[in-house]
């Protein structure tokens, strides 16, 4: 009950915020929500199932490229492009999952990394389709039968917020469902789960595809938001920063990764104004988090609350 009330309050704050923010701040907040969905999707693998994917950008990027290409070259029809983006993201994750889930631990990490880099290579090299290094510029936002144009910052923010809220709701049901609880059991002891009657591979595979689907939602929204997608949204640095969002916020918690995403987006924005070596800062953050907050920001808050109670 308490969490539901807190969630409702947070949603109200997010609904009210545009009234107090400049258009630039609002676009930053929009980006935080989109990356929040992306980080939550990865957490389903990393935090809940214990699968450290270092190629999660693949599904985000594939969705973004699919929507971008369709909107630019075929038709800017939301009802066609958006589902197509999701279909590609889930399709690619269903394919990659077949390979990646044959391995465990750091081997799983290496395979997801390699598969992700394959897509990066395609986006980088196939210039006639993807524009190569230059990416796909001026992707239009969708036109929906709404009284507000999504080209404006505020309506687009609410458009993204609606997806964010639905993603949180759906993921919160999944992680509390028998399926979601089984994922946690698999994270803790795979061998035990097998003996208890669980088809471990099937659980991991479905989790892998669901994570790809939600990453696809984020990728779709991002290309509309940014109007541009380039191979850098498919590469290892982007995958790694998603991992960092999850770890910073709190792996295995529902909203921690979204919080982590917000912090990373904020810091990136702040720091890249002063220096170019943003990735270096990411590395420092990673070290600090592992040393001082191994359970992420959510873990810190929980420990503080627990200490007060005791």
């Amino acid at each position: 009950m308490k969490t539901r009330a807190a969630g409702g309050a947070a949603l109200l704050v997010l609904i009210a915020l545009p009234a107090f923010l400049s258009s630039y701040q609002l676009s930053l907040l929009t980006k935080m929500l989109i990356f929040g969905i992306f980080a939550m999707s990865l957490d389903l693998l990393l935090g809940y199932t214990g699968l450290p994917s270092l190629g999660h950008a693949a599904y985000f990027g594939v969705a973004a490229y699919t929507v971008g290409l369709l909107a630019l070259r075929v038709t800017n029809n939301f009802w066609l492009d958006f589902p197509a983006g999701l279909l590609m993201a889930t399709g690619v994750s269903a394919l990659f999952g077949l390979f990646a889930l044959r391995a465990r631990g750091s081997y799983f990490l290496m395979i997801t990394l390699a598969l992700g880099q394959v897509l990066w290579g395609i986006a980088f090299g196939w210039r006639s389709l993807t524009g190569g290094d230059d990416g796909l510029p001026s992707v239009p936002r969708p036109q929906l039968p709404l009284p507000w144009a999504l080209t404006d910052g505020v309506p687009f923010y609410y458009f993204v917020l609606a997806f964010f809220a639905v993603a949180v709701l759906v993921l919160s049901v999944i992680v509390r469902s028998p399926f979601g609880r089984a994922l946690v059991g698999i994270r803790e002891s795979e061998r035990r789960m097998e003996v208890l009657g669980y088809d471990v591979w099937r659980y991991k595979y479905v989790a892998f595809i669901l994570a790809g689907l939600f990453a696809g939602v984020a990728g779709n929204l991002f290309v509309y938001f940014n109007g541009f997608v380039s191979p850098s949204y498919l590469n290892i640095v982007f995958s790694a920063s998603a991992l960092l969002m999850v770890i910073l916020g709190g792996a295995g918690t529902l909203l921690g990764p979204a919080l982590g995403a917000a912090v990373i987006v904020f810091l990136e924005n702040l720091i890249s104004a002063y220096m170019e070596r943003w990735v270096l800062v990411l590395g420092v953050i990673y070290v600090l988090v592992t040393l001082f907050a191994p359970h992420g920001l959510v873990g810190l808050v929980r420990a503080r609350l627990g200490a007060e109670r005791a």
Partner: protein
Amino acid sequence: MTALEVERLSHSFGGLAALRDVNLAVAPGERLAIIGPNGAGKTTLFNIVTGVFRPSSGRIRLLGQDVTRLPPHRRAQLGLARTFQITTLFPKLTVLESVLLAVQGLDPVRFALHRPREHYRHLLERAQSLLAEWGLADRRHAVTGQLSYGEQRQVELILALAGDPKVLLLDEPTAGLSPAETASVAQMVRRFSRDTTILLIEHDMDVALELVDRVTVLFQGRVLAEGSKDEIRSNPDVAAIYFGTDDA
């Protein structure tokens, strides 16, 4: 029909033969101890019966069905459960959560993802009643990794019982326990339903012989002797292994 039948089972790790031509047949409801010195192949036998390893050769029939090629979870669904010698509990999860996972594992809703688990009341009811029945109800919110060794062993047994197994393999349930804890685990095993077929690996001969109807002795991967408790007690080969005699 036998509850469990192992036919001409052999297994080797690299060139090392762990099991050679092992035959076993356990009747429904029977309790069989498998004893033998370290390295006799007892745990290997359990790992093959539960599907952790594929045997090099031989067959395994569970309740009449050939399960030699089935993965572990399919065997579990047919009614096979086991405990582990090295505890592989869920150390970070609470006792209740662990038992819920065990209850859910053989339930048709184990794959449901569209509703929170609380929606399925029968899972919680079953888990609570298991905990109450086996005297761990007041520890249900404790984190499993923080329980005493004896309590962890109890959780181990409850997880194995959660699915009402037809055949239960117990791998040294009293290993590493104090005499008092051993007694309470033995008491628990004695209370198990007589419908459950039990195979028990045990180092402690006294504990083993007290809990079972029949004994199979493994030695260097072979069945050295089998028979009633008295037959095993008076078997000179067994005595030679366990106590050492001049002609051994």
